[in-house]
């Protein structure tokens, strides 16, 4: 691993990020990355965060048109409430703050505590839970669907609404709408290694894969013999469509888990587009890359988000962050 010691991985990364991105404010001590111009007068501030190891999520999405702040936890560990409280205070211009929270017990509890504390300090806080992963059934017998690739759609689109000056309830409603219309399914071709453990989090023999994985190195729902890119696309897209059943055009995120080469990911995208065409789902926009990752895991996920005109317009709106950048 390209590290010094496991204990300093997150702080080291934030220092490196500060050096590479003078356009951001990086509070290394508190592990908060902020827009340099925060608080933005009259605008809602989007605050997200989560365990580290999913880069560029979330800090790579801080900037005009997307997040106002991101809080970095230890690897695969939700940040602590103090971080979100600090971030909320820093980005609140009086228009309030939206917490974008991936649905994991740790994130939910820590963000909840933070919301309470921030409100005690006079910040108006709304929260949206992202739970797009169809590999987990949302029932009494689970902690609910996980937040994965859909987070990117929520943060980009709600971020655009905030940038336009929409009030908190509206930004929250947009975020909720995006989450409700987003579904993901992920596949691992290898496990990942966390700095602390130093070895793969599970054993995946060569020639097998895990279907229905999350983004924390946990095994999936099912192990199978290796499938082709074509077969994986069929499986993943159909798993998503079974739950989403879009009646209009979709945004497609073809996401790499970290170690899958872009060459393979683009090839996989060709298969994803093929299935979508076969299922007669029009694709409005496609994003291919390593955006919501799981350290050095090989694999991919597919996220679809059904969009109406407003959501598409907000998706296309300018964004200026380290990892997503277009328009202006």
């Amino acid at each position, binding site marked *: 691993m390209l590290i010094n010691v496991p204990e300093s991985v997150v702080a080291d990364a934030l220092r490196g990020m500060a050096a590479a991105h003078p356009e951001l404010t990086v509070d290394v001590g508190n592990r908060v990355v902020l827009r340099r111009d925060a608080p933005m007068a009259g605008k809602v501030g989007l605050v997200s965060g989560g365990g580290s190891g999913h880069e560029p999520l979330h800090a790579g999405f801080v900037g005009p048109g997307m997040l106002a702040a991101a809080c970095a936890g230890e690897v695969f560990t939700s940040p602590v409430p103090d971080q979100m409280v600090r971030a909320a205070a820093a980005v609140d211009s009086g228009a309030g703050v939206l917490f974008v929270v991936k649905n994991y017990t740790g994130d939910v509890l820590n963000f909840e*505590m933070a919301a309470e504390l921030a409100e005690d300090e006079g910040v108006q806080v709304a929260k949206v839970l992202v739970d797009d992963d169809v590999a*987990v059934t949302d029932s009494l017998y689970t902690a609910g669907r*996980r937040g994965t690739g859909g987070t990117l759609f929520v943060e980009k689109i709600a971020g655009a609404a905030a940038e336009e000056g929409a009030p908190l309830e509206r930004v929250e409603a947009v975020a909720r709408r995006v989450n409700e219309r987003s579904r993901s399914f992920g596949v691992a071709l290898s496990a990942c290694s966390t700095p602390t453990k130093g070895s793969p989090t599970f054993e995946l023999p060569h020639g097998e894969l895990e279907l229905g994985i999350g983004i924390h190195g946990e095994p999936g729902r099912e192990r199978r013999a290796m499938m082709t890119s074509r077969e994986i696309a069929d499986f993943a897209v159909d798993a998503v469509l079974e739950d989403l059943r879009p009646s209009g055009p979709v945004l497609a995120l073809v996401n790499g888990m970290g170690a899958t080469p872009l060459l393979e990911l683009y090839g996989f995208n060709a298969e994803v587009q093929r299935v979508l065409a076969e299922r007669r789902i029009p694709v409005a926009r496609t994003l291919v890359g390593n955006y919501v990752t799981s350290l050095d895991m090989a694999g991919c996920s597919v996220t679809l988000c059904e969009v109406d005109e407003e959501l598409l317009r907000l998706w296309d709106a300018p964004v200026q962050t380290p990892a997503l950048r277009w328009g202006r």
Partner: protein
Amino acid sequence: MPEPTAPDSAGSPGSSDTSGASSDASSGTFDAAFFVRWLTIAAASVDREADRLTELDSAIGDADHGANLKRGFAAVTAVLEKEPPPTPGAVLVTAGSRLISTVGGASGPLYGTLLRRTGKDLGDEPAVSRARFAEALEAGVSAVSRLGGAQAGDKTMLDALVPAAAALGESFTAAREAAERGALATVPLRARKGRASYLGERSVGHQDPGATSSALLMAALAEAAE
């Protein structure tokens, strides 16, 4: 056993160790120093067992439970050493707050709430009896259950904490043993809460890391009382 048996532990499986040669019998009440000792022993134990906890979390979670608690308990001992709070309640509230501020993940708010709620329940009494502590711990455990929406049987820390709190009325040793049994009993369970629930049937056959760390905490408590 000279001390009264807590009524709610009557039906619990009896401790196999009936020697009772711990400080339970003699001390009667427990002061702030005792609670600091407990948490200091717990921190050392978590530090020693961190790799095992992470290994367990690696099987059905995300391989961070050991590192999480190690970081949190190191912070707890640091603050308790620097400014030892005056009462049992203050020790637990301070420790719980520290866990919340340093652990993150699911276990941070849950263990933090456990200690904070237990501590608040103890109020500002300078020393408390084991029975009083047992009562407060039950309140803390209930708070954990409410916060995380889990019950005993869901394959979480509650599988160790619920029986341990109940057995604490009987003795520290009983609490330790109940927690250990509870942790072991998570092996055949299918997880319904936390990350392990994502695995469905595949969570069966593995011991829950949080229940295991709860057993460590109860063992530390018994050791502090020896």
